[in-house]
């Protein structure tokens, strides 16, 4: 079997071109995530700082523990993580908000997808780094539960922030409920979607990311 073409020199040595492209896309998305987080930190936008820092931690953990810049998350997941932050901070969104009735729903949905992605990453990394073991149905349930629960805590956090610091995250009950509605829809969809996603993703790509661990330890038994 012929070896695929691999890059020879420098930092990228020994990698396939498609791996490099994947990693680069993910790095770019993570930079967006990083700088958006820096921006919200500077703005003292407390809730979004929590979100950004959590997302960055989950992104960085595999890279640090496996000491490889190529153990990055798939770029599409990184984009999903960065999207709500970017939508939140971009000033364009505010005028979009006024112009399109559905823009607010879009940002809520993006937020839901990101929360579900965090839930999924949490699941994967819990299995990778702790003694937690899950099977597929339980993992799906956990991702959905996590998204719903996290969005609930998020709303409470925003509300407390409003009361204590006089910010205006939550405008009305209707506002809060539509956000929760979107996050539950997004959470349920993404919980099911990620199960499918891991099934469909080629083995080679899975192993590149180090995501192979989840659901693969079929023969594992409790000691």
């Amino acid at each position, binding site marked *: 079997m012929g070896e695929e073409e691999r890059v020879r020199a420098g930092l990228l040595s020994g990698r396939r071109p498609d791996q490099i492209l994947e990693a680069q896309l993910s790095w770019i998305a993570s930079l967006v995530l990083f700088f958006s987080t820096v921006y919200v930190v500077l703005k003292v936008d407390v809730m979004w700082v929590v979100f950004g820092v959590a997302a960055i931690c989950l992104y960085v953990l595999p890279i640090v523990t496996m000491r490889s810049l190529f153990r990055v998350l798939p770029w599409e997941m990184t984009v999903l993580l960065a999207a709500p932050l970017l939508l939140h901070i971009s000033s364009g969104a505010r005028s979009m908000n006024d112009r399109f009735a559905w823009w607010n729903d879009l940002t809520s949905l993006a937020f839901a997808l990101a929360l579900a992605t965090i839930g999924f990453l949490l699941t994967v990394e819990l299995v990778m780094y702790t003694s*937690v073991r899950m099977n597929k149905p339980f993992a799906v349930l956990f991702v959905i539960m996590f998204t719903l629960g996290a969005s*609930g805590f998020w709303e409470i956090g925003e509300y407390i922030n409003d009361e204590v610091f006089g910010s205006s995250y*939550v405008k009305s009950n209707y506002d809060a409920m539509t956000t*929760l509605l979107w996050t539950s829809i997004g959470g349920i969809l993404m919980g099911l979607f990620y199960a499918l996603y891991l099934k469909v993703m080629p083995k080679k790509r899975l192993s590149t990311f180090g995501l192979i661990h989840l659901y693969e330890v079929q023969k594992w038994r409790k000691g």
Partner: protein
Amino acid sequence: MEERLKLASRAMQAGMLGVALAGLVTSNFMWMPAAMISLFISAIPAILRRDLGLVLPVELNFWIVLALFLHVIGGFSGFYDNVPGWDHLTHAMSSSLVAALGFVFVVSVDKYVESISLPRSFLAFFIIMFTMAIGVIWELMEFANDQLTGSRLQYDLDDTMVDMMFDSLAGFIVGIAGAHYLTHTAQEHFVKSLKVDRARKKIRGIMKKRARSKGGK
């Protein structure tokens, strides 16, 4: 103690039946469905016990009936509108109940599903998230009810948020208390007292019977 709790549960079930009957007699049908449904839910542990041999702890049974009873009696007597904080009280009750059922669920899953292992700290985390998730679903149901039928289950933002805070408080307390309880009681012992394995066997038997009857056709 156990006998007393059982007796109290019966009394509260009688109270719920009373609410349903009183609604029928006075043709005030507003709280009848809730009373009937609650009465049915309060009977579920007994049904599970009869059909599957699953034994929930007496305290949990009592808690289930108490939460339902407070909800029904509060609605019927107008406590929701007249007694300040009644809404939050019932919320805390029902969400602690949800958390307790979540606890029973994860502990059993951890014990009996081969491919799942959940350390204690994760158990607590799961219960907290689970309770909050159910709380969110609950608020969404109230919201949907308000939007569709024009009822006023949710008063305003403050009310909804305080409800959810009570939900999360209950989740935290039960989650942490549950994890603490397991450090002192062998998990083995707790799950065994639930007789989950007997219930599992019965469920398997039922499934097999079904498969057989399907195959026969």
